[in-house]
């Protein structure tokens, strides 16, 4: 027997927030066998494309229709006390439907990024921000400053595809046409090989950002303490740019940065747009996390932490993520992949009846009341997803034949809506 082998291109990868849409995927006998160009994050994210296809009730196999009925019963019974959690690896279409459920159930709703990304999102609400799409960085950035981050590990192709190496329409020399400033903040180091390196003690971080902003605004700061002199030099380099781009980790996973870092960076970049042009590039994780914020914003006006209990969206940014699952919440709907949930969240979800619909739902690190496995957005499921710069891209799944998350959530919405209508008549 000859194995069927096919090449699918260009596929969009949701492995990180770069959402590279130029990936070639080799499929053989329904399994992914190769992913090019080489990228460790993409390789891990695609895997071989196999996902479980189970439907479970309290851990035991069940029929889909029974599971949906039970899920609807649980959620409608708890209406007003439900948490809907938008986990990663959903298409935007599925996220929209999950939000419709939240609205209908008067639920609290939040997404996987509200905790790590909140500082930046809230700062941008206070100040606005100056940013650019990834292609604009590629085409124009002649000075790049990395603030305590080397994108190489979490975003392997950020430098090679977008920010540093490629030639741009206004930077014909590629890397040779760009100057790199690497700012190390404590253990959080910028990339190697920079033209200028600045080392900061974390305690000096906000002071350094203030000095840089003052320098950009033309306010003399002399003499400066030695610890901040490097920052002033970096600001001078930024002022020499035609188009400066500052890069920071907007979703830190390990090292907790100063909560004012994001605001300081936003203010600095805004100020740079007086004497020159500048943009802030916020590195965001994959799995269409940015899409969740986008949908939340267009449907409710708020990018995170929304509570529908009053019958309309209320903003509750001080209570974020799954932390609210313990307070008055009697049922949880998780839409998406639960793999990234921490031990605390999993323990909480073990105590509250939970419905999980999404990729690998049956492998959730707690026993869900109902778990329905679906395909993964971008691997098995079409639709759109958002890049870290909030550009929407199409998903071109190389595999098919799995249960769709969007379709399953739609089916649940129909049952829940029907039940609520019956209850109100």
């Amino acid at each position: 027997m000859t194995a069927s082998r096919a090449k699918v291109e260009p596929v969009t990868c949701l492995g990180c927030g770069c959402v590279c849409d130029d990936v070639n995927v080799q499929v053989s006998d329904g399994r992914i066998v190769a992913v090019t160009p080489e990228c460790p994050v993409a390789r891990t994210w695609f895997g071989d494309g196999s996902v479980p296809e189970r439907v479970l009730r309290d851990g035991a196999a069940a029929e889909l229709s029974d599971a949906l009925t039970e899920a609807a019963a649980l959620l409608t019974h708890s209406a007003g006390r439900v948490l809907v959690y938008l986990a990663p690896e959903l298409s935007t279409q599925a996220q929209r439907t999950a939000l419709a459920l939240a609205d209908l159930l008067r639920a609290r709703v939040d997404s996987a990024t509200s905790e790590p990304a909140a500082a930046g999102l809230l700062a941008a609400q206070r100040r606005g921000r100056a940013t650019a799409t990834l292609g604009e960085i590629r085409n124009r950035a002649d000075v790049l400053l990395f603030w305590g981050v080397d994108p190489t590990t979490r975003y392997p192709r950020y430098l090679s595809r977008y920010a540093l190496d490629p030639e741009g329409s206004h930077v014909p020399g590629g890397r040779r046409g760009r100057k790199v400033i690497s700012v190390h903040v404590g253990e959080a180091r910028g990339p190697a090989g920079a033209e200028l390196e600045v080392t900061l003690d974390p305690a000096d971080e906000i002071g350094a950002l203030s000095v840089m902003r003052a320098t950009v605004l033309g306010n003399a700061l002399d003499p400066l303490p030695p610890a901040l002199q490097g920052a002033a030099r970096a600001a001078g380099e930024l002022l020499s740019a035609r188009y400066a781009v500052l890069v920071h980790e907007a979703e830190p996973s390990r090292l907790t940065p100063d909560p004012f870092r994001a605001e300081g960076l936003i203010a600095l970049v805004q100020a740079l747009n007086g004497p020159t042009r500048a943009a802030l590039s916020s590195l965001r994780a994959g799995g269409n996390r940015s899409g969740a914020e986008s949908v939340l914003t267009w449907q409710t006006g708020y990018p995170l932490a929304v509570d529908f209990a009053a019958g309309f969206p209320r903003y509750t940014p001080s209570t974020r993520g799954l932390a609210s699952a313990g307070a008055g919440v009697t049922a949880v709907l998780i839409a998406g992949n639960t793999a990234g949930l921490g031990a605390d969240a999993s323990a909480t979800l073990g105590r509250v009846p939970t419905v999980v619909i999404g990729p690998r739902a049956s492998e959730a690190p707690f026993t869900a009341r109902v778990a329905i496995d679906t395909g993964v957005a971008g691997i098995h499921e079409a639709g759109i997803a958002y890049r870290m710069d909030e550009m929407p891209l199409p998903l071109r799944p190389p595999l098919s034949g799995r249960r769709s998350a969007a379709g399953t959530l739609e089916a649940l919405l129909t049952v829940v809506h029907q039940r609520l209508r019956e209850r109100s008549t």
Partner: protein
Amino acid sequence: MSSRDALRITGGSVHDPANGVDGEVRDVCIEDGRIVERLPQGAPTLDANGMVVMPGGVDIHSHFASSSCNHARRLIPDEHAANPALAPELLDGETPARSGTGGTVPSTFTTGYRYAGLGYTTAFDAAVAPLTARHSHAELDDTPCVDGGIFVLMGNDEYLLRQIEAGERDRARDYAAWLLQSTGGYAVKIVNPGGVEAWKGGQRNVTGLDDAIGGRKVTPRSILETLADAANALRLPHPVHIHANNLGVAGNAATTLASMEALAGRRAHFTHLQFHCYGGGNGQPWSSAASKVIEYVNAHPEVSTDVGQVMFGPAMTITADAPVEYLLHKSSGRRWTNIDIELETGCGIVPLTYKDKAAVSALQWAIGLELFLLSQDPWRVVLSTDHPNGGSFLSYPALIQLLMDRSVRDERLKLANPRLLAGSALADGLAREYSLNEIAIITRAGPARLLGLTRKGHLGPGADADVTIYSRETDLAKMFATPRYVLKQGALIVEEGQLRRALRGRRLRVAPGYDPAVLPGLKRHFDAFSSVCFANYPVQNLPGDPVPVG
């Protein structure tokens, strides 16, 4: 009732200017979602006795379904918190009604419901970057009750600028057609031609029609000419939609007139004209140049415009004209978002409040009214506030009242700062009051005609059965804010002033043909400079059929 049912609207005074009907009491018959000549005896009736019947409103220029709007939404949690929107109590129950939030940039479902509540059933988002078209269509999917479309930004597009520089105007035309088709767009939009590219490239802006953009042999004039010719050659239903250079700058009326003259003889739509009618500058105080500009418009039938009226109160400025927003941020000290969008355009956002005690705001308000009141052809000078830039679409009823009732207008004028109003025709006294028929023209028949929407903006046989029925009120603002009935595709979506049904809107887009020979060069351009693969650029699975061109 569903959209398939027949209905005879009886007893109302019908204002259907496209068909020469000016307030006659006559029946309007509906079947299968369309207007029909007649219905059999015994067909269900809707009693509109004593009421005013008009086609559904058509908004020719609004910002309500774009990534820029979404960035603006994110910027105003305070406004949203102050303006919560409960889900309406719908009668059909087939689709869950959705809650949301208001403010200057409401959430999507609330936007659709509020447009419908105002009697508007068609609206266009006037500024969408091609790369973000997919987002706009997703927002439109979540904006019920209105048929919607998008205008596609092209006036600072890198590929287009390169074609103009190379003298390849046919290729530029084919590119424009490909872009419209690929994005599901409806019209070609130009914002500050060349100025946004100048902002991104460090030149900051352009000021004159013959300024070189980034040191190239491309000028605002060549962009205007190329895209106006492209839209006309492609026989698009709507001509090129132009936001001219120097928006919001004292003395910009000269640029506006030069832009119109540059396109003399060509069909072109100049949008939010109020923002482009300022005198003064060069050390002289701001003043109104509305009379001069509207005189040109009156004399040139190929030119059309929407006014972009400023209304006192909160607004949100959202525009691809990013350099203007930077200046607004610096002068107002308000929050500022700027997004540079690769190869295509920019985006700037600043929340703003127009205060009647502020001299420039008062001047802007007066200029908009002057344009309306000095216009000799309501079919070519139609209503907009450039929502939410000059004010929310919810302020249209108050604007209509200002146009129809001189006494209300004069009272409002007394409250406005007079410092810059010397020489303003409004301050000198304009007696004109719009009639109901003229209101029907500037809010539905005119925009529909300018957009080339043959089934919108009128109540003749074959038209979409989008109908708005108003109870007569002495308070005209109240009358236009709360229609008694609104029908969309023949279905009653507003009854007794309450939203009762939330039909999914239809998509209005065009798909003009182009020479496929343009594609290989285009692909090379994408491969060299875009962060998105050429194959992934076109939006797939667009709903509905395109509106025919030609």
